[in-house]
């Protein structure tokens, strides 16, 4: 009965999405306040119904209702409760339902918190949200209905793919979707602005918090996915330049560009049509990401079983959304008058440089990811593009971007003084170069990469600190006054400092693992000792462990340095009872400076076990950096100016003083 309620609620939600997508548009065109108001009601009701539908499916999972095909295929009565719940989105149908739920919730948030938006703009934004929702509701109901019944109901289910039964992956999809779907709001604002033919500082100020929130979640989602791959897959790596990973990186790069260009639009009333274009493209790439992951057209190490028909539907939908958005853009964007003028060397110029490089990086990832698909479609060879391609393109192209990050905030709006900024940064630059030179003597491989990377890392972190110190006039005025200035700083600028410094932390982590990782694969017998990265490693005979829905062999590996125990790791090999599938559970001991990492392999039947050991210097910094990056975004989001917004659209936005 409850699944039927969920199904029915979903159908109703689709009908409401249709109403939300059409009536407010007509209302805005005719100036009918009643029709426009309908958009808000529809958005709230659609979200409530979609939530009801999602809860119905969750309930079916929690009580293990095996008359539902979806529950049978992805759940089992002995599964721990957490994974029964997360199993809801651990499959295609459920994850699409989660997608459309988040979409509807974002729509409802615009309806609820958009009180200061002009009525016509709000009506149009909600209408575009409704149309996107309609597409996804139809997709779920017609190709991927999670409420399909199965008769007769089997006694028990097939269980969830064991590698998904993990806390890291449990929350990776919701966060990633919050990011992907959050970009739909920026898209809707862009399309609504094109329909209105008006983009101004007030518009940019409304778009920024939504983009910022989406970007924060996307950052966290990508980081969580990468962290999961790091400890669950047992390869000791964190990023494989795999199509599925690239699919989430592309929208992130463009969302980052959008965040920065929206600042220029807000403060200086310039780059309007570029900002609108970025908003359209960022969401299109988020949809493309969904398509790549869901259709299985590319061989991926993260691939799941797929159905090509569904891929085709999403592809059609992308063509509609991106094509529609871009057509509207081509038609209406020339009407958007250019705004404030500025010299090439200025804050605006710096932000354009940032946007240019981020766009170029997106193009590189896009080509690398889709080239094999293109070649295949043209009847050419089956090829793949792997990490060496990105090492030769993405990495060198990202260096100038990272180097420029420190300069940007020191340049004034309109006309900046690059020589002055360089003089101010001389000390930071000298330290960074010294770090690079020092590293070039220490590194044993990838010397150039190590030197540039570590130098850049120091440059970014110290540069961000310098910029903050300058702003609060540290050591120029009494320390107490500096602290008062710090408290008084706009949150947005504190957030920027954190996010910019986090790039340096993240860079250091990536370089640390890439350059100084030590890998040992060996056959280890209990009682024997092995040398690995300066440790003496020994193992006890693995024990049999009985888990809730798996049995496992748990090893106990001791790492000693100079006779002192540095770490005791207990990696596992799990065999899941229902599916008979194995998973490798890596054990990691992290100090802030390095990860000691071990996985347990198979027994050779003669008393030895294959073990895979890694020493990953600075690895924790990768995720620490990503966490700081998102934190910077969230701090920025609490800025009063973004919450209060710009309730009145100024005729001509007054020039804002440089921050």
């Amino acid at each position, binding site marked *: 009965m409850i699944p039927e309620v969920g199904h029915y609620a979903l159908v109703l939600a689709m009908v409401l999405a249709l109403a939300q997508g059409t009536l407010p548009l007509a209302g805005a065109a005719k100036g009918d306040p009643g029709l426009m108001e309908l958009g808000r009601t529809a958005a709230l009701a659609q979200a409530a119904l979609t939530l009801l539908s999602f809860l119905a499916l969750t309930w079916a999972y929690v009580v293990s209702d095996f008359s539902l095909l979806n529950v049978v295929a992805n759940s089992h009565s002995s599964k721990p409760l957490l994974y029964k719940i997360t199993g809801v989105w651990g499959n295609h149908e459920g994850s699409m339902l989660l997608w459309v739920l988040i979409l509807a919730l974002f729509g409802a948030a615009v309806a609820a918190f958009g009180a200061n938006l002009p009525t016509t703009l709000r009506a149009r934004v909600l209408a575009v949200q409704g149309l996107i929702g309609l597409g996804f509701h139809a997709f779920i109901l017609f190709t991927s209905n999670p409420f399909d019944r199965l008769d007769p109901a089997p006694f028990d289910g097939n269980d969830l*793919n064991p*590698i*998904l039964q993990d806390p890291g992956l449990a929350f990776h999809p919701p966060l990633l979707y919050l990011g992907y779907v959050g970009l739909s709001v920026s898209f809707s604002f862009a399309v609504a602005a094109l329909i209105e033919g008006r983009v101004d500082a007030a518009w940019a100020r409304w778009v920024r918090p939504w983009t910022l929130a989406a970007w924060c979640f996307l950052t966290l989602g990508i980081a969580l996915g990468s962290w999961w791959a790091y400890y669950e*897959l*047992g*390869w000791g790596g964190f990023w494989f330049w795999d199509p599925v990973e690239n699919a989430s990186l592309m929208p992130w790069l463009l969302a980052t560009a959008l965040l920065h260009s929206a600042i220029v639009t807000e403060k200086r009333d310039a780059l309007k049509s570029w900002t609108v274009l970025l908003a359209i493209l960022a969401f299109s790439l988020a949809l493309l990401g969904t398509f790549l992951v869901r259709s*299985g*057209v*590319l*061989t991926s*190490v*993260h*691939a*799941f*079983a*797929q159905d090509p028909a569904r891929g085709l539907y999403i592809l059609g939908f992308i063509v509609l959304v991106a094509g529609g958005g871009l057509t509207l853009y081509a038609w209406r964007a020339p009407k958007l008058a*250019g705004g404030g*003028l*500025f*010299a*090439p060397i200025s804050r605006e110029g710096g932000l*354009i440089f940032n946007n*240019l*490089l981020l766009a*170029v990086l997106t*193009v*590189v990832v896009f*080509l*690398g990811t889709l*080239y094999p698909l293109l070649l295949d479609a043209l009847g050419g*060879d*089956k*090829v*793949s*593009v*792997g990490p*060496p*391609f990105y090492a*030769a*393109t993405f990495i*060198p*192209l990202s260096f100038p971007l990272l180097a420029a990050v420190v300069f940007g905030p020191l340049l004034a709006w309109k006309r900046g003084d690059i020589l002055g900024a360089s003089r101010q940064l001389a000390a930071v630059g000298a330290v960074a170069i010294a770090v690079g030179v020092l590293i070039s003597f220490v590194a044993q491989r990838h010397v150039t990469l190590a030197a540039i990377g570590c130098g850049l890392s120091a440059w970014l972190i110290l540069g961000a600190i310098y910029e903050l110190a300058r702003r609060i006039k540290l050591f120029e005025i009494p320390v107490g006054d500096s602290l008062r200035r710090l408290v008084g700083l706009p949150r947005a600028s504190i957030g920027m400092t954190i996010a910019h410094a986090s790039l340096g932390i993240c860079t250091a982590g990536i370089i640390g693992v890439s350059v100084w990782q030590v890998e040992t*694969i*060996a*056959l280890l017998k209990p009682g024997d000792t092995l040398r690995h990265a300066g440790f003496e490693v020994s193992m006890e005979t693995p024990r049999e462990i009985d888990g809730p829905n798996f049995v496992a062999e748990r090893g106990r590996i001791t790492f000693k340095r100079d006779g002192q125990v540095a770490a005791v790791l207990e990696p596992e090999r799990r065999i899941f009872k229902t*599916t008979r*599938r*194995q*998973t*490798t559970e890596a054990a990691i001991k992290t100090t802030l400076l390095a990860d000691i990492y071990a*996985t347990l*392999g*198979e027994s*050779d039947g*003669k008393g*030895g076990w*294959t073990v*895979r050991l890694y020493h990953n210097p600075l690895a924790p910094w990768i995720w620490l950096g990503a966490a700081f990056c998102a934190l910077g975004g969230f701090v920025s989001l609490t800025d009063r100016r973004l919450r209060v917004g710009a309730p009145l659209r100024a005729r001509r936005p007054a020039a804002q003083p440089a921050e």
Partner: protein
Amino acid sequence: MKPKRKRLWLLLGSMGAFALAVTLVLVALDDNLVFFHSPTQIADKKPPPTQRLRVGGLVAPGSVEKGSDGLTTTFVVTDTRANLKVSYRGQLPDLFREGQGVVAEGTLGTDGVFLAREILAKHDETYMPPEVAKALKDAGHWKKDAGK
């Protein structure tokens, strides 16, 4: 600076950046493309040992053997028409099984044994890499449901 000159400057800058990026991409693609071969294609073409490539097919049942060092695994990859012996040192992915699809990346040794540097893992046992599906189809032994 006049708006017109500013725009020209911007346009030139962006075009320069994109040209640089495209050049980098093309050069990198030229050097770093990894071609996929089925066992039949390898038997026909005999690629040089310097070329990094991917092979894919089914792991022939009964062919998986552990080496004496306990770390090296050898197995036969087949597209049902031709066979290729593959050797891999290290820990196999969790979903590596006899009779299932596999993709390996590495080089062809002079002795005709494929030295795999990496065995591509899958997250789902019902997943069949598209290249493997095509290789099997080309060899004339593809049932639509074989991957499911």
